[in-house]
């Protein structure tokens, strides 16, 4: 016989879990007692939100399922933003929360929160365990659900008495669900039809989203692009699906996408959407989105097909399998020479650019230098705001899973804990959090976690003294009425670093940027680089919200 707490630890071992991110409290003391003797690596974060983001960053960097533990009540509610972030971006995660003992549920007991209720709209599925005999199979099911199909977070609420009750332990290998099926092979007639459409197209574009990354289909995307000479635009989540410097890559599409990506989508005759969900940040005005195109939508989630945009051809399945099958079926290459010439013209005439004037450091330049120094081979996490968009625009990612950013929810404070998770998942890789002065302050308590586990994460703060992205909107659309967007004071990040025992470097002149970044990258431990950048720089191009992709400011 084993206690529930032991069963949880043994089940995690059975799942091959190497690291869990958590924070203890009354309702999980029995579980933590068993973790004490376990070989499982537990990372003690300094705020539960960070546990969820770190597990999420770990999952994005490694492709494995992230695991989180928190106590009941406030511990559990602190996870909400982290779970929602993972849900919006379809990240596999299993979350364990403590709960008051079964007889105490429903009585507003101390630290009781209905976390399965609270998280209902932001989980793929959730369980409240009521019988210790079902604990192991519940854990097996949770890992299965989180990591298959369209991935996502699954929550298991663990009443304290369940953790202490005893049962026989046997870990099920099989799972069975009456109401859950993982889509596999696509319909071959549809694949054939799609292959034909691609061959007949004159102006094709591939639009690659986060699904390409999660299904491990980067190779297949590049294969399809090269075989058919089709240019590729990526979403924020799809960044890395094709190297940003690949000749067929057009960079990011959407609100802050490149001129040529947005023009390509707006003029193509065939749009092949792969693992993407036609988010409003990508499409702008739906009525003018890809107006000349037939749309092929390849996605694992049937509910995405036709959700925002009507499509002519839908292939439901794991995008990796669909793309493999599609490539086998492709015979004719589209005659797209003229189209590629046109795109080359757009690229030439409207490159991504910024003005390098005066002595102020341009934030874009900082990102460009990071890109150059790392060769696009580092894992970059981002915060949210201008820093995120500049990172997306100017960091030339070489491979999948090395650009980690909160896309759907846009969660400030994500990047630092995500970097913690990514670094733990990939100890031999260089991990850099491209941060903003505002976002950094939302989870800076994690500096302690970084120090405790000696994680050599580099934090590059693009310090503009503003909630820059909001300020940009106020400048452009509200007559520069900077309502509550100036951050006074911004703390002295170097002193702050020192308080945690972290190396701090400040850079104030453009010419020092490369050497300071290099020093940071070479340094074996964690570093904060405080880049004092131009305060009122804007992210361009920009499609105003709800506008047409061809109507770009600063294109």
């Amino acid at each position, binding site marked *: 016989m084993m206690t529930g707490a032991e069963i949880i630890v043994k089940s995690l071992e059975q799942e091959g879990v190497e690291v869990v991110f958590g924070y203890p409290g009354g309702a999980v003391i029995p579980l933590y007692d068993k973790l004490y003797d376990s070989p499982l690596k537990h990372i003690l974060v300094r705020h539960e939100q960070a546990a969820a983001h770190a597990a999420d960053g770990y999952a994005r960097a490694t492709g494995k399922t992230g695991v989180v533990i928190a106590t009941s009540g406030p511990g559990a509610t602190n996870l909400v933003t982290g779970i929602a972030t993972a849900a919006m971006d379809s990240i596999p995660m299993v979350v364990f929360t403590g709960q008051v003992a079964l007889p105490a549920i429903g009585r507003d007991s101390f630290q009781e929160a209905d976390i*399965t*209720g609270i998280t*209902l*709209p932001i989980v793929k*599925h959730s369980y409240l365990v009521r019988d210790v005999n079902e604990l192991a199979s519940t854990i097996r099911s949770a890992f299965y659900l989180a990591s298959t199909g369209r991935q996502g977070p699954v929550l298991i609420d663990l009443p304290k008495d369940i953790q202490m009750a005893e049962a026989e332990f046997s870990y099920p290998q099989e799972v069975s669900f009456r*109401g859950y099926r993982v889509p596999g092979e696509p319909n071959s007639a549809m694949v054939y039809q799609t292959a034909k459409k691609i061959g007949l197209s004159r102006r094709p574009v591939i639009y690659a989203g986060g699904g390409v990354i999660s299904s491990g289909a980067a190779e297949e995307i590049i294969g399809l692009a090269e075989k058919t000479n089709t240019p590729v635009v990526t979403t924020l989540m799809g960044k890395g699906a094709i190297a940003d410097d690949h000749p067929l890559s057009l960079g990011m599409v959407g609100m802050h996408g490149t001129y040529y990506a947005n023009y390509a989508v707006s003029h193509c005759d065939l749009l092949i959407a792969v693992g993407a969900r036609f988010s409003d940040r990508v499409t702008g005005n739906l009525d003018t989105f890809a107006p000349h195109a037939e749309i092929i939508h390849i996605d694992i*989630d049937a509910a995405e097909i*036709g*959700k925002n945009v009507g499509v002519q051809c839908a292939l439901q399945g794991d995008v990796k399998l669909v793309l493999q099958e599609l490539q086998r079926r492709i015979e004719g290459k589209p005659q797209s020479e003229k189209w590629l010439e046109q795109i080359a013209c757009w690229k030439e005439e409207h490159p991504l650019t910024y003005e390098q004037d005066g002595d102020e450091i341009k934030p874009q330049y900082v990102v460009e230098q990071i890109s150059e120094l790392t060769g696009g081979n580092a894992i970059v996490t981002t915060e949210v705001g201008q820093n995120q968009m500049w990172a997306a625009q100017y960091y030339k990612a070489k491979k999948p899973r090395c650009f980690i950013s909160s896309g759907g929810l846009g969660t400030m404070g994500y990047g630092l804990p995500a970097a913690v998770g990514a670094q733990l998942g990939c100890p031999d890789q260089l991990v850099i959090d491209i941060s903003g002065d505002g976002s950094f302050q939302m989870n800076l308590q994690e500096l302690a976690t970084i120090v405790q586990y000696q994680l050599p994460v580099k934090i590059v703060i693009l310090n503009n003294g503003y909630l820059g992205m909001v300020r940009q909107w106020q400048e452009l659309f509200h007559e520069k009425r900077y309502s509550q967007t100036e951050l006074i004071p911004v703390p002295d990040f170097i002193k702050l670093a020192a308080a945690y025992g972290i190396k701090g470097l400040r850079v104030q002149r453009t010419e020092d940027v490369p050497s300071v970044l290099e020093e940071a990258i070479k340094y074996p431990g964690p570093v904060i680089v405080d880049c004092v950048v131009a305060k009122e720089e804007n992210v361009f191009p920009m499609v105003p919200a709800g506008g047409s992709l061809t109507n770009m400011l600063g294109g």
Partner: protein
Amino acid sequence: MSHILAILVENQSGVLTRVAGLFSRRGYNIDSLAVGQTHDPGVSRMTIVVDGDSRVIDQVVKQLDKLVDVIEVSDISGDEHLDRELVLIKVEAEPEVRGEIMQIVDIFRARIVDIGHHSLIIECTGDAGKIRAIENSLKPFGILELVRTGKIAMVRGQKYGEG
């Protein structure tokens, strides 16, 4: 247009919340919802009537189908089906009008299931049209209370869930 969705779900706590929550979260309106256990005690069946064009309904069905506890969903409005609803109506009924009310009850093949000093409770089963009609007929007497079960529906012939 109104659509009738037949949904088989795991008979587990929380399922109703998951289903209802999905409707409100995604902005779909439930016109009527009825739920109860099937002949398999592990499975409940919901009948949900929802208004929307075919694109909305397509989304509703697909989103419902994604819920792990939802075993099967189908829009049966287009199929040859029966639908029924049960209504209880408490109507004001002083002795001098009881005869008239009983005639109405007969016409609708409804039943009087309780007699009070000043009121009657009438039980009536039928499709939406019949329910509306009896309600209208009884209105002039003064309806004191009315409760309906929500629509339940079944496709004729072939067995749903095994087709």
